[in-house]
């Protein structure tokens, strides 16, 4: 059985689980480990040409709508039915199960959730205590705290990533949602130039004033480096960076960082969901074994083992496990964040939309375009993309 996994921290637990399962069931396992961008290309090429090169694929949830077009993935509903089962159990956190269905939240299951990633808010608890600040609940309080800490310490109050494309969009989405805006209206029309979205972008630029000057070129690595080196006090970040914050070989701030849910503003704060899923390509020649494996790998016992290997779980019971809670102090916040998280818009053209949106957000952050003009251009571009992909 051949399994394609992401060559990074998200793929490590699945890789080890596959080897365990191979030994347990006496199945020969071949792991194909690919970096993020290559994984997408190779998997989609395999799905489109139905070569059957992979029996199980690991996929990032924004890829799911594109991967489910044209009967490319095996319907798990049918497999569950054939096995005399009803479907995934209720222990999975709903937001992570919803992105495994096409249409979103209501349709057929084509995947199971394996990595429960959603954004968290990282902040320096020691500095918040020093300046008598309460935990950041709203974006306004984040800005005030960032100004206060920035003025009193030799560091920046906030750090965010605004490199063109995925990076800037990822950090902007929680702001967009908190300010009451969205990418699409209820009838699926692009509305990134709404007055609420303009306010969100203007707020992002205000945050930019308390962020290191090079942030318009930052990706996740640079943001985390600023926190680890104690040169910035707050950021939005992914669970994969929780471990390094408390690792003395990498961090100057061991034990000083606290984790919170993404702040609110006009609406309750919602983190962006970045779950990793496992699915079976319809070209797989070992689909029954593959189904057996993905069910085994996502059961509570295996997910607990995966959590110990550094994998953020997608099951409620694993987040509540007493042994794990002692080891992973951010689990309660991670669970709450994951339960309230929101996925990126469910469209097969999301990669292209994110790229166009990211270009104009990046231009606004670089101050070469006014926020209104940037969002108007982004809206035009997104409309054109949707028209082309009709």
């Amino acid at each position, binding site marked *: 059985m051949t399994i394609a996994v992401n060559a990074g921290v998200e793929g490590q637990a699945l890789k080890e689980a596959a080897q365990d399962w191979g030994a347990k069931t006496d199945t020969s396992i071949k792991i194909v480990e690919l970096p993020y961008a290559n994984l997408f290309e190779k998997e989609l090429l395999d799905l489109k040409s139905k070569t059957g090169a992979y029996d199980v694929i690991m996929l990032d949830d924004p890829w799911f709508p594109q991967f489910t077009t044209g009967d490319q993935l095996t319907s798990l509903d049918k497999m569950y039915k054939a096995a005399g089962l009803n479907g995934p159990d209720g222990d999975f956190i709903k937001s992570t199960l919803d992105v495994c269905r096409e249409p979103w939240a209501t349709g057929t299951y084509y995947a199971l959730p394996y990595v429960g990633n959603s954004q968290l808010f990282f902040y320096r608890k020691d500095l918040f205590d020093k300046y008598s600040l309460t935990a950041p609940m709203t974006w306004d309080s984040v800005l005030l705290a960032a100004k206060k800490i920035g003025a009193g310490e030799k560091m920046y109050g906030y750090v965010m990533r605004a490199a063109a494309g995925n990076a800037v969009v990822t950090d902007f989405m929680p702001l967009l949602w908190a300010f009451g805006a969205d990418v699409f209206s209820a009838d699926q029309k692009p509305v990134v130039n709404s007055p609420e979205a303009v306010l969100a972008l203007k707020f992002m630029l205000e945050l930019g004033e308390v962020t290191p*000057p090079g942030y*318009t070129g930052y990706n996740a690595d640079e943001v985390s480096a600023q926190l680890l080196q104690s040169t910035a006090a707050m950021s939005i970040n992914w669970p994969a960076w929780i471990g390094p914050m408390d690792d003395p070989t990498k961090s100057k701030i061991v034990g000083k960082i606290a984790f919170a849910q993404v702040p609110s503003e006009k609406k309750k704060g919602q983190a962006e969901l970045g779950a990793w899923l496992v699915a079976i390509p319809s070209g797989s020649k070992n689909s029954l074994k593959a189904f057996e494996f993905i069910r085994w790998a996502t059961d509570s016992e295996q997910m607990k083992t995966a959590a110990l290997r550094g994998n953020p779980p997608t099951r409620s019971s694993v987040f509540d496990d007493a042994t794990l809670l002692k080891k992973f102090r951010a689990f309660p916040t991670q669970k709450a964040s994951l339960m309230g998280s929101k996925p990126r818009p469910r469209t097969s053209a999301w*990669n292209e939309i994110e790229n166009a949106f990211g270009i104009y957000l990046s231009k606004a952050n*670089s101050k070469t375009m006014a926020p209104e003009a940037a969002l108007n251009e982004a809206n035009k571009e997104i409309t054109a993309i949707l028209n082309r992909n009709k």
Partner: protein
Amino acid sequence: MARRRILWILPAMVVLVSLSIYPILFSLKVSFTNQQGDWSLSNYSRIFADHLLHVSIIQTILYVTVALVIELGLGLFFALVIDSMGRGKYFFRAGFLAPMLLPPVVAAVIWRLIYNPEFGVLNNTLKFFGFATKNLTWTSGEGSAMASVILVDIWEWTPFMFLLISAGLQAIPGEPCEAAKMDGASSLRIFKDIILPLLKPTLFLAILLRAMDLLRIFDQIWILTQGGPGLATETVSLYIYRTAFRFFNFGYAASMSLLCLILVTVFAKNLFGMMKMKVA
């Protein structure tokens, strides 16, 4: 006899057809299909309306022109200086080639660290000498990003120009220069009237090889800026890659690739023509 001749060139023909002609014809076919797989001219009509492509073409031309002119100028300068040195010539020649030996990806990663506004060696060195570095954001600034990526290219590929020109200089016979010197010609006059004309074939070759490589620029920019901030460093190669492998629109990517192929072929043919004319 004719049959034997055909047999001799058959392996070369097979390689040419399977590795060059067939992929080009296949790309041509793909370029005339839309995302639903139907025959369509939409990819070619989109080329004229796509302003992201137009921006990336302009920036590619800017990138190629600036990098090429500076690399050629510096390569010529260093080749003349190092070639005229007595002792230490071989030491400097070997040392000068070091950047070119690095894989472009490694060079880009090194420069990404150098350019980091907070932790990078560049801003920290400038800070040490008392310069204000707060606004020196290098690859992160929309105004400075293109210059920063061009600087990396110059650093890495000037040695290539130097190497070619240096070899060209060594092939120039010494007698004409010595005779001119005895007649009292200045160094500038010798360079202008003897060295430069004899060096022209080498210079044209250097321009051709480097320009074709620059037109394909991808890895350095991808690692340094991924085309940003905004569209500040987006080039045609990056845009084609994104269209094909991120947006999975192979038809449009194929039509843009064929357009590039035509433009590069026209450029190379003209340069070859100029080269032949000047050499003649």
